[in-house]
């Protein structure tokens, strides 16, 4: 059965009417060929921009969500690509297993996690999601399903991780889970009065399992880049509150709240944002700076507010996430923060994080060793202009922006950020015929 559905990414812009079919390996290519159009697979639609939609044909992969195998010696999980991290956690955390890498939402499919080569708060220690994928089955342009790993079809394996779904449709993914002592995280907060202090704090705490900073993107002067650096370790059962010790893997169920409607556009302005950010910093800097919180509140604070993307109103928003190489990070970030603070645009949630070594062998994988800054901008022409200015600083510093968050960068900026890898990716697509069978709104925008 076919339908035209209005699809949008998590940032709610752009929106397009797309023809949607279920991703069925038996018929996927028939549909695409009948329509003479490329197709893109879509999971939870958590990428922010236009990566998981293609108006001529978008293939919904969500009902391909069966677990296939789990090895409780090695932690290797084999599952269909439509399985979400939420399902993995629900099933395997009670037995002491957790994803090696998780982004800031658990509502992401394995397919999406591979296609975005997503990263988490432990990137500086263990790399991105793709570093923990043993193999996957990919439905290729010629209709064959290929098992890809570092041993076989290696080029395809590397290009697909971070490849935004443009090399084929991911069908089955084998990835490693890690053994954890409990469902709880011991979190330590290190207030940092400005950007330099935050960077010092990250560099001094490279051993922390998890690290991330909430950064006040509107503070200026001596306080430019003031942050709360949050470190996390998996808590041992004996560190838990007495009442949780007998069942260290069970956590209190949070009541989900749903953002019932779009926030009015006037509710976000430089005063409300500045006040929120100042208050948040003050509250976060106050004791207790060390506490034990459950994994859900630690990793996924926003998942508790379903449809929180309505916070930014009906016009939608864009998340700007940039990665700057280590040697240029301090200066480029200071320049970007100054521009953002001046503009008064910005968000409740700006995040700063130290990346470990990236994966240059994977052409479109985002992380590079250095710092990454991510923040939301409600869409407006002023915000779009600001992001273009931020792009210039990013590119001049040898950095790049993240495809899974992006909806607006130009092809030129993209090519400057990802360099020769873009041509290598295009060449691989053309060699295997993927350029004719797989396409998204994003691939068309960026000339992929």
């Amino acid at each position: 059965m076919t339908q035209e559905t209005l699809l949008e990414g998590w940032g709610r812009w752009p929106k397009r009417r797309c023809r949607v079919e279920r991703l069925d390996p038996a018929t996927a290519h028939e549909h695409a060929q009948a329509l003479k159009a490329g197709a893109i697979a879509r999971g939870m639609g958590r990428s922010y921009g236009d990566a998981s939609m293609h108006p001529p044909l978008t293939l919904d992969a969500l009902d391909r969500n069966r677990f296939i195998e789990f090895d409780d010696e090695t932690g290797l999980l084999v599952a269909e690509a439509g399985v979400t991290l939420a399902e993995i956690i629900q099933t395997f955390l009670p037995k002491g297993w957790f994803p090696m890498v998780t982004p800031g939402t658990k509502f992401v499919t394995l397919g999406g996690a591979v296609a975005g080569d997503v990263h988490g708060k432990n990137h500086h220690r263990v790399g991105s999601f793709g570093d923990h994928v043993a193999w996957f089955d990919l439905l290729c342009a010629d209709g064959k399903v290929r098992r890809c790993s570092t041993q076989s079809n290696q080029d395809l394996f590397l290009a697909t991780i971070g490849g935004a779904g443009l090399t084929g449709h991911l069908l089955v993914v084998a990835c490693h889970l890690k053994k954890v002592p409990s469902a709880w995280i011991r979190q330590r907060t290190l207030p940092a009065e400005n950007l330099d202090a935050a960077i010092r704090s990250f560099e001094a705490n490279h051993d922390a399992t998890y690290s991330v900073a909430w950064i006040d993107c509107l503070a200026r002067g001596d306080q430019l880049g003031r942050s709360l650096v949050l470190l996390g370790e998996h808590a041992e059962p004996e560190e838990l509150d007495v009442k949780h010790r007998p069942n260290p893997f069970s956590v209190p169920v949070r009541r989900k709240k749903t953002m019932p409607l779009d926030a009015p556009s006037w509710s976000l302005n430089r005063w409300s944002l500045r006040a929120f950010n100042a208050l948040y910093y003050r509250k976060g800097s106050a004791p207790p700076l060390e506490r034990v919180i459950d994994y859900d509140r630690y990793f996924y604070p926003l998942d508790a507010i379903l449809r929180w993307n309505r916070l930014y109103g009906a016009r939608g928003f864009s998340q700007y996430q940039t990665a700057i190489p280590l040697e240029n990070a301090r200066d480029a970030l200071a320049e970007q923060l100054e521009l953002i603070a001046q503009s008064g645009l910005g968000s409740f949630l700006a995040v700063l994080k130290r990346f470990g070594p990236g994966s240059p062998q994977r052409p479109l994988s985002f992380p590079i060793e250095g710092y990454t800054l991510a923040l939301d901008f409600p869409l407006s022409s002023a915000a779009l202009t600001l992001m273009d200015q931020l792009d210039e600083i990013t590119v001049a510093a040898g950095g790049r922006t993240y495809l899974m968050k992006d909806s607006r960068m130009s092809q030129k900026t993209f090519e400057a950020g990802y360099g020769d890898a873009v041509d290598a990716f295009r060449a691989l697509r053309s060699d295997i015929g993927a350029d004719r069978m797989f396409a998204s709104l994003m691939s068309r925008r960026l000339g992929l």
Partner: protein
Amino acid sequence: MSAATEPVLVIGARSDIARAIATEYARVGHPLWLAARNATGSNRDAADLALRTDAEVQSFDLDVTDLAAHDAFLAALPSTPATVVCAVGFLGDQEADAGDMDATQMVVATNFTGPALLLEKLAARMSERPGKSAIIGISSVAGDRGRAKNYVYGSAKAGFSAYLSGLRQKYAATGLQIMTVKPGFVRTSMTDGMDLPGPLTTDPDSFAARVVKAQRAGRVIYYDLRWRVLMSIIRLLPEKIFMKTKF
């Protein structure tokens, strides 16, 4: 309510609703017997359910429209189950099916004749079991009033609802609970492609949780309140007015 160690037989185990209900039962410890066409052999649903829930899962081949094979299927079961979920359903294609003999027969055989005959045999055996037992039949609001959009499917489901109602009365004095479930819109492969109204639509997991809760509470009908109100209004509309509506 049967003990959590008693197996639950799921007929039509491939549907999304069946999978979700099976998961609910398995999570509290019931072993699962999954019956569907070509269920044995490489069965991803069985492996998935076993991993998700740690339940013991067995698969049985069953084509509910192959009436002659029902006895062999029942004989293959290790014992008489205490709980049966019948989630067989086939929407068909209204426009193509209306007036087409084979297609109409297929819709009626899948939604009515097959399940009715199989449940009759199961009910007879289950009612003789000591203690309580339960049959959950998944019918549909589509059976509440024939509508132009899906009256082939709807009339088969209307028949199935009436059958369950009769079965319930027949076994009222025994420990066998017969529960009719009327889902409205559940996001499944059957409703794929329909433009569903948000407030009247639910996802299979939360739907399944409510169904299992209702069964364990001994209820005989599970019918979402909003749908019950809506369909009561639709049922009460005089035919002359109903004819002109576009529900």
